[in-house]
């Protein structure tokens, strides 16, 4: 039956972000012009956000397999085996555009959305993390955005009762007009009780549960697929509004129902709401779906078919139930005071048929909606080679302690306490290590096993050399997990880039994905889920590229994990992965260069994947053997910053032997990769083990009772003094 009324034209399609070719394809597949509702559905499904049309070709190159993988990309979230018959289920997702327009709600619904992705799979969420990028720190707009985003993340996570255990944040002017808000959720499920989204069984009831549908977030996925301009303010109505209380009820109701034998398939209504959930469920099942839109619980009257299908109201789910399970399910949702409404059924037609006011409002074949979604091989080039910064050209002979103090007040190194203390990091009482460590550690409830989790990316490296930067994000996450004693298992990624229609941006994407894929393959950490966020530009200024890695690993016994604070005076401090003679550390693209150097983009530190794997494995093994009692990966700010952080964490000091040179800044602040600082009571055994494994190791000093850092003879600074600058930087920036 052909839907009547409101015949659309190419002009309407353009307004929804579709190209001439895409419009032609739609009319060809339908054999007629679509109506408003149908065009809206095509435009949402073919948006960059839902279709990955610019990135798909390159995402296919990422490694996705491994013996640990239970569910790879394509479902609501990825799943890996963590032993004991359990699976860790996790994903990261961006909410960049909404958060810039309306920071509190944008960030809050980002958290709510990623949590739904995880509990939709049957997992109880146990941890939240995030990756944030803001513009210049000393800027009123940035203050407004940081304040709103942080309280929005906390507002949702704290209320729903899932701990926010880690994250990362950087500040750079390229994010002035386009911040990044990526939220990651991790859950745990029984491996044999994972729920998927493919619809099954023609005739089975399709059930709508959760909150009512309103006029918020309409066509949000399409907004998220366009560049920003000065007119962005007018898009505020496309931002969704979160309700973490309803989210909590929905989570409990879904998990309670999933424990019974009632649910055949389930999909959350995220981007593109009822459209993507119904289309994806039908498409994956190779079936059709018929929905009576008059039955959809609505918050307001007179909502059109277009509005009902494109609304991104939060806290909603679509389920296919076993035919005889409807009353069981209804009782569960009644208990939690949530809407529960059979709105249609699975069909054999392969078509999405929508009824409204007794008429057919939409009748389109699902195959073309999904399979014919465009896939582009957008033009790209090669990133120009960058000059290498010679350390001698930038270093001075000022004392390490003074430079260190200055570095620790750099906004990209300073304490994040002002941010993470606004997150409940402890609810569920299984957080063994929360924010501020190398990786977060969350105990698997009721056992000694732990999940180690970290989010990482160094955008300045990616900008300088996307391939190296893409690999470095994986390597740093791998080090972070290893530094607490955990074995990395798999990753989720969030690819944040500018407009892919520009060859230089597409180049960043292609090269970063290549580097990320190489590293993930070599380190046996396949990509099991992810998200792509493109068009992160305002008035044609692109962001620093930011392909974020969220990595999950496992440790058998949380009691064997270590932290990154010194343990006892008299312990030895060693560097793993660095020889005695390393004086010219790598300062190109370092925080030191940012802080003291020019604005030239230099070559970032190279990545040696074999060294990453060997050194991380060694650290992990020695932690588990009890031979290392504290470990910290060396990253932003280099060796001296890593040592300072270990000291500040513990209140204990350190006496460090410096190489024999008057120009030590490369040694102290260079960002050469694949290195760790560790402390131990067993220095001889550790050195012998490293030599046996062919790993460079250098004893550089001792942990001391005095609360001060000593670099060689006569260069001393108190821990209290560096804590002062480290802790006051962000609070004072936020105070304005």
């Amino acid at each position, binding site marked *: 039956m052909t839907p009547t009324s409101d015949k659309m034209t190419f002009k309407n399609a353009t307004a929804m972000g579709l190209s001439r070719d895409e419009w032609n394809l739609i009319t060809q597949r339908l054999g007629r012009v679509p109506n408003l509702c149908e065009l809206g559905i095509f435009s949402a499904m073919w948006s960059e956000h839902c279709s990955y049309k610019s990135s798909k070709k390159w995402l296919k190159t990422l490694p996705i397999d491994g013996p640990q993988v239970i569910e790879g990309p394509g479902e609501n979230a990825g799943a890996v085996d963590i032993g004991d018959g359990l699976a860790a289920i996790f994903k990261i997702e961006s909410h960049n555009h909404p958060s810039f327009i309306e920071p509190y709600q944008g960030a809050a619904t980002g958290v709510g959305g990623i949590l739904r992705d995880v509990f939709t799979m049957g997992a109880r969420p146990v941890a939240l993390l995030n990756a944030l990028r803001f513009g210049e720190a000393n800027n009123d707009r940035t203050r407004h955005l940081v304040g709103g985003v942080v309280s929005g993340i906390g507002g949702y996570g704290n209320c729903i*009762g899932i701990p926010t255990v880690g994250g990362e944040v950087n500040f750079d002017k390229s994010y002035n007009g386009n911040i990044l808000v990526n939220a990651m959720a991790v859950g745990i499920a029984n491996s044999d009780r994972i729920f998927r989204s493919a619809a099954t069984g023609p005739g089975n009831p399709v059930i709508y549960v959760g909150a009512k549908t309103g006029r918020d977030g309409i066509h949000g996925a399409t907004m998220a697929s366009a560049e920003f301009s000065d007119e962005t303010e007018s898009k505020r109505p496309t931002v969704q509004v979160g309700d973490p*209380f309803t989210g909590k009820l929905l989570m409990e109701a879904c998990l309670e129902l999933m424990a019974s034998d009632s649910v055949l398939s389930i999909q959350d209504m995220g981007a593109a709401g009822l459209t993507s959930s119904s289309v994806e469920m039908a498409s994956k099942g190779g079936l059709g779906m018929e929905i009576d839109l008059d039955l959809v619980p609505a918050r307001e009257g007179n909502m059109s078919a277009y509005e009902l299908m494109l609304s991104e109201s939060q806290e909603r789910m679509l389920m296919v139930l076993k035919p005889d399970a409807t009353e069981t399910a209804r009782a569960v949702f009644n208990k*939690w005071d949530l809407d529960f409404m059979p709105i249609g059924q699975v069909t054999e037609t392969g078509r999405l048929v929508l009824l409204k006011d007794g008429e057919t409002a939409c009748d389109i074949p699902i195959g073309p909606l999904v399979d014919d979604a465009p896939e582009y091989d957008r033009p790209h080039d090669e990133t120009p080679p960058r000059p290498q910064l010679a350390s001698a050209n930038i270093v001075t002979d000022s004392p390490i302690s003074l430079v260190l103090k200055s570095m620790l007040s750099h906004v990209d190194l300073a304490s994040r306490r002002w941010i993470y203390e606004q997150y409940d990091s402890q609810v569920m009482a299984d957080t063994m290590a929360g924010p501020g460590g190398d990786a977060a550690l969350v105990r698997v409830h009721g056992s000694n096993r732990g999940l180690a989790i970290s989010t990482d990316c160094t955008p300045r490296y990616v900008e300088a050399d996307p391939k190296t930067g893409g690999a470095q994000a994986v390597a740093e996450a791998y080090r972070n997990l290893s530094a607490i004693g955990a074995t990395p298992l798999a990753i989720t990624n969030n690819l944040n880039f500018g407009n892919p229609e520009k060859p230089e941006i597409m180049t960043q994407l292609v090269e970063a994905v290549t580097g990320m894929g190489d590293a993930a393959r070599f380190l046996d950490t396949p990509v099991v889920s992810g998200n792509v966020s493109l068009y992160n530009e305002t008035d044609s200024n692109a962001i620093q590229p930011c392909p974020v890695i969220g990595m999950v690993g496992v440790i058998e016994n949380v009691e064997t994990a270590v932290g990154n604070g010194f343990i006892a005076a008299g312990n030895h401090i060693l560097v793993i992965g660095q020889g005695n003679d390393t004086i010219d550390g790598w300062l190109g693209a370092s925080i030191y260069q940012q802080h003291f150097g020019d604005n030239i983009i230099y070559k970032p530190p190279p990545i040696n994947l074999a060294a990453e794997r060997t050194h991380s494995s060694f650290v992990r093994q020695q932690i588990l053997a009890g031979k290392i009692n504290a470990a910290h990966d060396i990253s932003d700010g280099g060796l001296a910053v890593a040592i300072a952080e270990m000291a500040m964490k513990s209140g204990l000091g350190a006496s460090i032997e410096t190489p024999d040179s008057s120009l030590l800044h490369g040694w102290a602040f260079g960002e050469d990769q694949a290195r760790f600082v560790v402390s131990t009571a067993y220095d001889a055994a550790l050195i012998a083990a490293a030599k046996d494994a062919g790993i460079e190791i250098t004893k550089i000093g001792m942990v001391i009772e005095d609360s001060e850092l000593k670099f060689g003879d006569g260069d001393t600074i108190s821990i209290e003094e560096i804590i002062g600058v480290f802790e006051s930087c962000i609070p004072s920036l936020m105070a304005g």
Partner: protein
Amino acid sequence: MTLSALRVAIIVFPGSNCDRDMMVAIEQLTSRRPALVWHKEASLDAADLVIIPGGFSFGDYLRCGALAGRSPIMNAVLDHAARGGAVMGICNGFQVLTETGMVPGVLIRNAELKFACRNVGLQVCETLASPFTSELATNKNLILPIAHNEGNYFAEPDELDQLEGEGQVAFRYTDSSAIGPPNPNGAARDIAGVISSNGRVIGMMPHPERAMSDLHGGNDGAYFLLKSLEALVS
């Protein structure tokens, strides 16, 4: 009576999120699993201790604890308290207790207008006879986590004078090794926890159930809960 004979009931509202954590904590100390009681229940089985856990009951909509205070189960909790039964309210539970008048005062937004999750130092105060403080070493300092947005204890000065005079202040925020100002929320006279005039009801902002072992980074929560449970047994 032994600890394992102690009957503990934990009230669960929609939006409670520390109910499981408290259940695990009590079971760790008593080897007996507490009962979880859904808020729609109209009656309460005999209990030696009723705990109202932390969380965001009813989303903290209207006012923290206001809607929970009017849930069906609260009549039974009020009856239990009127009979001299012991009640402990943690964080959102403290807010519910002030909303129902079971302990004096109110809890308003943190002075810095931000959610605060961190460790705080607590001084154990000298109080009137109460199972929640009688076994604690007076003036001992504890370190416990807080996690709240509305923990700023407020009462009129004469009311505060009376509370102090009667020995109803159980805990005060105090200096500790934790980073940050000792009083995390602007609470009047640094009050972190109060007890009722008969000593049988305690409301407190800090979360003892999150400090149950070295793996949590501290076990002062286990100390406080165990001493309370032991006092209730004896």
